[in-house]
């Protein structure tokens, strides 16, 4: 592994409250304070004038289909897509094959990851057996196998008793429970936000209520059990208000949203384009605006990619029959930057908080900082570069990305994990 001497980059690091031009040195996978005093130490010198360095991005919700091989998203392909998007740490949801609901499968998946993943690969273990919401999975054993959180995502446990017991039990192991809040009886035929758009298109509605009722459930459960629950992929203004209220009362709730909910609204689904069928659905402008404000005031802690790859033939079908979810890892940062550039002060610093520092804290992983002695997970970005995203050219094995064909501003040029170059813009 080469030692690195990174010159003249604008370095952004919330952990050390750094936001300015400086030089960095990396030796033996780690950042060091300054150049080594050993005379024979050799450095690869990179002049990064005009470029920005951020700590590596940390994703709290991405989905992978297979552990290895096949034509569906696997650990290798998701890892490459992540590197291209600047993500150096992934928390993968348990609906991978095999399901991460037992220690044997988890060890197998982690073994596959150690061979195939260039990024830090972590699993969230299932809350219930096969994420079916019927009986608790062996949460203690999952913890021993290395999971960092417990969740049934993309499902939400419908049975309140099981959910409560799961949260209570997981909190004993200091594991956060992640919930993508969705009350199913109010949204089971819902393929779109129930606005006038869905009404005129004849699509079944997935109302804000279906999310908000379960947001309130998590708040109440967290309050009574004093347990940490992380709400994933928040999409509605009402949810933001509930979370804000809960945080003001000191309840241990954290929350995230996705790049698509920050950039797009349900107007996009006119024409029945299934690549805008997200999970949860795209909502209205007032929701989108509320999510942006919630990030700025800290009500929402972080942005997850919500990366949900689906094969082409499954997505290219009737809108109501197509699965919900979009790919996102390699467009996440650029899409948000493009959307918020010029509207938010200190945007690179905020992005580092939302996409790296804050999510790392939630899963208690100290891999998102640029300080002496830290493992060198970082990315080099050209914030001014404009490019057209082409989903079929993605490293992801799926191309169901809502930003396909869009002009984006800001491009990841290099991604390093532990001081090693894992992605370089071609």
């Amino acid at each position, binding site marked *: 592994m080469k030692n690195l001497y990174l010159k003249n980059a604008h370095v952004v690091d919330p952990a050390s409250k750094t936001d300015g031009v400086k030089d960095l040195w990396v030796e033996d996978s780690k950042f060091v304070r300054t150049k080594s005093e050993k005379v024979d130490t050799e450095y690869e010198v990179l002049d990064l004038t005009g470029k920005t360095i951020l700590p590596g991005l940390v994703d709290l919700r991405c989905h992978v289909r297979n552990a290895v091989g096949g034509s569906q998203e696997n650990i290798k392909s998701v890892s490459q897509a992540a590197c291209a998007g600047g993500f150096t740490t992934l928390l993968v949801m348990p609906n991978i094959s095999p399901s991460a609901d037992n220690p044997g499968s988890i060890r197998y998946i982690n073994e596959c990851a150690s061979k195939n993943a260039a990024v830090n690969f972590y699993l969230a273990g299932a809350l219930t057996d096969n994420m079916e919401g019927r009986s608790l999975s062996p949460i203690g054993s999952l913890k021993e196998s290395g999971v960092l959180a417990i969740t049934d995502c993309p499902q939400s446990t419908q049975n309140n008793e099981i959910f409560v017991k799961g949260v209570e039990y997981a909190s004993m192991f200091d594991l956060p429970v992640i919930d993508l809040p969705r009350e199913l009886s109010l949204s089971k035929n819902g393929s779109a936000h129930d606005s006038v758009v869905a009404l005129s*298109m*004849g*699509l079944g509605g997935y109302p804000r209520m279906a999310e908000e009722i379960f947001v309130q459930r998590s708040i109440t459960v967290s309050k009574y059990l004093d347990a940490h629950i992380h709400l994933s992929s928040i999409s509605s203004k009402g949810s933001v208000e509930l979370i804000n209220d809960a945080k003001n009362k000191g309840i241990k709730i954290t929350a995230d949203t996705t790049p698509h909910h920050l950039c797009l609204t349900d107007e996009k689904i006119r024409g*029945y384009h299934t690549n805008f069928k997200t999970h949860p659905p795209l909502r209205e402008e007032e929701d989108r605006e509320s999510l942006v404000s919630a990030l700025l005031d800290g009500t929402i802690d972080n942005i997850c990619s919500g990366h949900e790859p689906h094969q082409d033939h499954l997505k290219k079908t009737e*809108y*109501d029959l197509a699965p919900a979810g979009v790919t996102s890892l390699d467009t996440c940062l650029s899409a948000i930057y493009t959307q918020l550039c010029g509207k938010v002060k200190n945007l690179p610093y905020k992005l580092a908080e939302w996409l790296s520092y804050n999510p790392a804290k939630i899963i208690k992983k100290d891999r998102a900082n640029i300080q002496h002695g830290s493992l060198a997970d970082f990315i080099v970005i050209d914030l001014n570069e404009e490019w057209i995203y082409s989903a079929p050219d993605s490293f992801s094995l799926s191309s169901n990305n809502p930003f396909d064909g869009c002009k984006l501003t800001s491009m990841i040029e290099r991604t390093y994990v532990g001081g090693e170059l894992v992605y370089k813009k071609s």
Partner: protein
Amino acid sequence: MLGLEELDVNEINLILELSKEFKENLSKKQKPSKNLEGKRIVNLFMEPSTRTRVAFEIAAKSLSADVISIASKSSSLTKGESLKDTALNIQALGADAIVIRHSSPGSPLFLSKTIPVPIINAGDGSHEHPSQALLDIFTMQEKLGTLHNKNITILGDILFSRVARSNLWGLQKMGANVTLVGPSTLVPKGFEKMGAIVSHDIEKSLSKADAVMLLRIQHERQSSSHFPSLEEYTRIFGLSIERSALLKKEAIILHPGPINRGVEIDSTLADSKNSVILEQVTNGIAVRMAILYLCTTNSTRK
């Protein structure tokens, strides 16, 4: 022909004028015209339908086209073939137009993007049923003259109704005022944003109506939570003989069928002189002839 939302007044009038010509020819009992001789029309019906399918078949045959009807039970759709693959196969078989009925909203648009064959929407889920709305408008114009400033009341299950949506778009383009009436669970306020007047007061909306269109209560689509019972629905929202007395003398009653006699409409009213229900069926043939003709011969796609 995917829906009335995207058609403009001129396009709608063109179809209606041509329908009138075809209707005159039909009433003279002329032999089938040779307009579509040699054309192959495929009826792809993936949801049960009798009258729409038959009306399209008769319309196609009246223009001397060849018609192949594929119903979901007899096709490969039940074997798990995707709509895309079915469409590609039908295209390979040399269809000049596909008439599709499907439970998924937007599926005709999906087909039209998949294959370069004219697609005619014969009902897609709760989205649109343009040929039905056109025959409704045609029938109303025959009876009421211009629809400009006429009050049309559509009564019943609006939420799940493609007929209601297509009529709402079409009628407003013809200048009519549309009132949607029914229980709040089936007539959500959101329809106001589409230009309609939403009401839950049947008496008030009947008295000013020039035409009342009743929609079938579709047991198969509604979960039990939309209204407590058919009995209560009929009592509060059914078109009874007493309520029909509120109607203007010359007001007409329409229904796209099939009728649930005694549920949304009293049986005798369905057969009364105000009822144009059977004329709708006859007009449906002429309107569908016009649609088939324009879609398969005209250079414009719509």
